[in-house]
């Protein structure tokens, strides 16, 4: 169906259900309960799951298929963000032009950087992309301030000359991006018993876009073009000997993944019309690498899961503080409870990076194929045992 084989179609369906029902199952704990802290079903966070999911899907097309490890993809996300905000400022508060233009701008930007960086492979390629991204970051934060807003960032204001719709409606002094009048921040809240579910317009716009680009990515993975990219990863030299130049293919993959990053940037500013230079910094590029690796490099669904998990941990772990810990361990005897709080303390709250680092090392050491690779490996082992 949809030009996919059965397994891929089921996976698409799985992701569709996952994304569509996320506002419900990400809020498994009743409002006001002790564990309500772990609820992730609020619009801001769910939007970020999907946006970084799109970013990671795109990164995986480059890294997962061709094996070229780019350390500069955040630059495209940043370029897309700036382009998106400018569209919201100059053209219309409607998000569609912003999303389309940010994708195109990132595509052109990645074509320029990719054309130069892809002259080299291996770590040289990584360093070249890193160098370009750091240059973009430094320039955006300093010299290009008229275009990028420098360190304060670029954001929409009520006085912007929007050619198509003039001054837009909005709360406070920041106009709210909308889709034909439907504000991105608008949510419907549904209370079922003690549970509160939030269905947000922006989230479902992101979900719609994610489903499209996820479908495209599956088609790329299964296409002759995707086979060619895999051939580049497994043996570049042999491919050259067959008379095929790998460069156009890697460049195409680079531009596609750059456009995915730009799309993510465009969506990001559509949800929150603010773009800052730190979005381009190399740590942001590192983050998308982590997401892809954690989920599973070269698997279709891995990057989406990786993005979700990292963003979840970032938000939930960082919110846990000592008072909350004491509350949790309150059922234990005093001494033991204090001990547990001291043990857990460094891993949560401000120290959540420590958990992230450890989790990351463990995945790379024990699950080289990421979470998806680990799970499929487990299934394969169980299945083989049964068939004996």
């Amino acid at each position, binding site marked *: 169906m949809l030009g996919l084989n059965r397994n891929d179609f089921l996976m698409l369906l799985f992701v569709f259900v996952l994304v569509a029902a996320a506002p419900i199952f990400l809020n498994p704990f009743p409002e006001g309960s002790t564990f309500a802290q772990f609820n992730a079903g609020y619009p801001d966070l769910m939007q970020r799951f999907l946006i970084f999911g799109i970013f990671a899907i795109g990164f995986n097309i480059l890294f997962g298929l061709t094996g070229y490890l780019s350390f500069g993809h955040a630059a495209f996300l940043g370029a897309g963000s700036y382009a998106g905000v400018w569209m919201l400022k100059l053209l219309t508060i409607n998000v569609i032009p912003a999303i389309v233009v940010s994708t195109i701008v990132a595509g052109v930007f990645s074509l320029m950087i990719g054309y130069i960086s892809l002259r080299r492979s291996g770590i040289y390629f990584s*360093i070249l992309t890193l*160098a370009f991204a750091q240059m973009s970051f430094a320039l955006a934060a300093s*010299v*290009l301030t008229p275009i990028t807003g420098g360190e304060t960032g670029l954001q929409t204001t009520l006085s912007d000359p929007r050619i198509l719709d003039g001054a837009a409606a909005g709360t406070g002094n920041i106009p709210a991006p909308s889709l034909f009048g439907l504000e991105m921040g608008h949510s419907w809240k549904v209370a079922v018993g003690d549970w509160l579910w939030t269905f947000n317009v922006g989230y479902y716009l992101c979900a719609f876009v994610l489903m499209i680009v996820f479908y495209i990515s599956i088609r790329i993975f299964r296409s002759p073009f995707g086979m060619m990219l895999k051939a580049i990863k497994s043996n570049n030299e042999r491919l050259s000997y067959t008379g095929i130049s790998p460069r156009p293919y890697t460049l195409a993959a680079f531009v596609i993944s750059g456009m995915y990053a730009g799309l993510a940037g465009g969506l990001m500013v559509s949800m929150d019309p603010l773009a800052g230079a730190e979005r381009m910094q190399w740590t942001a590029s590192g983050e998308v690498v982590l997401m892809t690796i954690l989920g599973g490099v070269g698997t279709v669904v891995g990057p989406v899961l990786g993005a979700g998990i990292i963003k979840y941990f970032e938000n939930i772990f960082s919110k846990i503080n000592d008072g909350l810990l004491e509350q949790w361990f309150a059922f234990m005897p005093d001494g033991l409870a204090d001990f547990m709080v001291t043990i857990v303390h460094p891993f949560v709250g401000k*120290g959540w990076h420590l958990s992230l680092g450890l989790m990351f090392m463990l995945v790379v050491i024990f699950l080289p194929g990421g979470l998806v690779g680990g799970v499929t490996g487990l299934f394969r082992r169980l299945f083989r045992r049964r068939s004996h």
Partner: protein
Amino acid sequence: MELSALLLQVLNGLDKGSAYALIALGLTLIFGTLGVVNFAHGALFMIGAFCSVTVQRLLSLSTVTLDETKTDFLGRPLEVKTPYVESWFGESVGQAMIDWSVPLAILLAIPVMLLIGFVMERGLIKHFYKRPHSDQILVTFGLAIVLQEIIKAYFGANQIPAPAPSMFIGSFDFGQLVGFDPGVLMYPYWRIVYFLFAMLVIAAVFAFLQFTTFGMVVRAGMADRETVGLLGINIDKRFTIMFGIAAAVAGLAGVMYTPINSPSYTFGMDFLVISFVVVVVGGMGSLGGAVLAGFVLGILESFASMREVIEFIPGINQVVIYLAAVLILLARPRGLLGRKGVMES
């Protein structure tokens, strides 16, 4: 432009260049021997820097006695702190030790960094020889985050100053030394110390590799690990020791850098990215290239931050290193002194 202004920029570039060169040297040692790309190297530099903070704190541990004859501004008896070292070694020696805590930290840093290097290599890196470079990058990157966070949990997130010995604080008139008018060319003492120290460490590493039997075996192993192993030499053990030495070099670079820039837990990451650029510009696996590129890029950075240059090309000071890296890599794909066939698929 005057000659003295140019000379000043060269001098200003030397201290940063020294740090780049030392970190890049360690990275290249690890890459050349073990074939591992170590993203945790910046964290080792940072741990070295915190060795000097630790030594400074250890030396200033004091006993507190109340002096009833004097009062502080709140009218309470004055607290007199006597550092233990002053009571053990006498006042003058103790004060000198506290004053010299940064250089003294070298004594702590060498064994600590060697140990960390050994543990890291045997415990983690060893299992990653056969894995792809991207896996090595990722696991060491994870380790770098963990090390950073441990330091942050213990020392806090703020920068902690660790001043140089008082005799090296301030500047001296370098210009007069080479025949300029007085006051034209001032240069801080500690930066000269740092530069000389870096040269000493670099020379020691090269001499160790060049003139000792151990170094000869290591160099042979870098060229052809398998053959050296077949000759009945335990090359793995030697490479582990080299990893420890590389860690120690990064640590020493960190210890002595603290007076120039107060360390915080992100100290290493700032240098790591540039150091990788330095290694690649110098040529992967080339020790001389790493040192050369470190100084070249350091000096280049300092030239680019001259007012005249910034006025001419705005923002150049922010990007010059990366720009140079891109140009060099495109013009000389293997870096300045790189050999053929290293890190190429």
